[in-house]
């Protein structure tokens, strides 16, 4: 009797175990297992070439260190105002724009654009005959120059204030539009620059604009001296 009960119990246990295995077989495999199976089927060689699985996958991105850039401040932009003595046509106010690029400690390139309005020649004043129309009296010029800081230095205001400065020479070429004609111009001069702060500069400039013209009869070299005050900002 006991052996019969034992056999019955054992067969029940065996049935239970096989039943579990049956249930397990029908259970739905999870997604990961399925995908790895698919991969294995599609590329059987990938396992051989794949790197060994890492023990720790630290999921930390390397921080890119951004090095701050250095602000360049070589460009000077500003305005000037002064007096231009147009040969034979008197001295008149002149105003203009200037752009400087500091190439090195010693040299800088400069572009200027200026405008003035010529006065009257002594002939016009005495005879009451006008040589030029109003539009032709407009004196417009531009210059492209190279400057050289001949005497860099410092100026002192009182006991506590020192400002960097430079006496510079300037020469270049350009064009003058005057008296209904446009003329090739050579310019040369000198100037003085003082920097009250690192970004602001005050200028005093004297220049001669020389061009060949026949506006007053025979063709000759015209010297047009200009003295200006300027204000520029460094960028």
């Amino acid at each position, binding site marked *: 009797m006991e052996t019969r009960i034992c056999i019955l119990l054992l067969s029940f246990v065996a049935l239970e175990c096989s039943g579990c295995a049956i249930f397990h077989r029908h259970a739905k495999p999870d997604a990961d297992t399925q995908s790895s199976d698919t991969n294995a089927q599609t590329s059987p060689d990938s396992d051989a070439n794949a790197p060994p699985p890492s023990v720790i996958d630290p999921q930390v991105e390397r921080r890119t*260190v951004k*090095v*701050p*850039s*250095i*602000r*360049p*401040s*070589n460009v000077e932009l500003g305005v000037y105002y002064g007096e231009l003595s147009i040969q034979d046509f008197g001295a008149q106010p002149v105003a203009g724009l200037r752009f400087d*690029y*500091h*190439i*090195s*400690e*010693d*040299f800088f*390139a400069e572009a200027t654009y200026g405008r003035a309005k010529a006065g009257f020649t002594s002939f016009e004043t005495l005879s009451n005959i006008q040589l030029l129309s109003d539009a032709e009296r407009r004196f417009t010029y531009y210059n*492209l120059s*190279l400057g050289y*800081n001949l005497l*860099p*230095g*410092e100026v002192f205001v009182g006991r506590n204030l*020192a400002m*960097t400065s430079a006496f510079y020479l300037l020469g*270049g*070429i*350009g*064009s003058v539009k005057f008296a*209904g*004609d*446009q*003329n*090739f111009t050579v310019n040369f001069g000198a100037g003085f620059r003082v920097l009250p702060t*690192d970004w602001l500069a005050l200028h005093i400039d004297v220049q001669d604009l020389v061009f060949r013209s026949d506006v007053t009869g025979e063709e000759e070299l015209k010297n047009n001296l200009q003295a200006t005050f300027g204000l520029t900002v*460094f960028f």
Partner: protein
Amino acid sequence: MERSITTTRSTRRWPTKVAPLIAALLLSLLAAAAASAREYLQLFVVQPYLELHTGPGRGYPVTQVVARGESVDVLMRRTEWFKVRTEHGVEGWAYERDLVHTTLADGTPFQINLGDRAGFAAHRWESGVFGGAYAGASTISAYQAFSLTDNLKIELSGAQYLGNLSNGYLVDFGFAHVFMPNWRFSPFVTLGGGYERVEPKATLAEPLSSSNQTAYVGVGVRYYLGRRLFLRGELREHEVFTNQNSNEVKNEWKLGFAFFY
């Protein structure tokens, strides 16, 4: 009557109403400026000491030195000079050739494009100004070039020419090939095309302006002067495609200074 008074008063008070708005705007601008306050590059002195001058020039006196191991913040650069601030808040100007001996925070050496012969051979941008002649007329011209390689550059140039019979403008775009960029005296050839604008002088019978397409080929030399400056001379032959029976050939020469950066 009261109304008119009210109107007058309101007109007078208008600026005071706007004033807070302006103040708010200024404050917001200041706040924006403060928010965008620059983060400066920090450099560490590894040489025995770093000299600081009072101004951006070799003649300005040295009034401060930064000791080895200390750092400076680089505030700005002007030509070969860098304005720096020490850990103690002292500001001064350091020379670029002294700063190349410093290191960044991670210990790597501070590298900078120096304006020297190596820079003349290999740089990204260059600009220049020339005087010359185009078909007998005086010219004023300027150019800008970008280096694709040390040898090959793309160039854009503009010129105004002023002659006895006509004035006009030229705009050219093309390539320049420098044969030996590392030589002080380096030859190059140019090739490109552009436009020519002719404005005959009003005294002539046919004061009609015209624009023509052009193609050019040129040969020239560059001569390194020092720092970032060099001389450049070029001869160009322009083929001007006119609407007449034959094209015109105009020669141009130009000589001037240029600089790289």
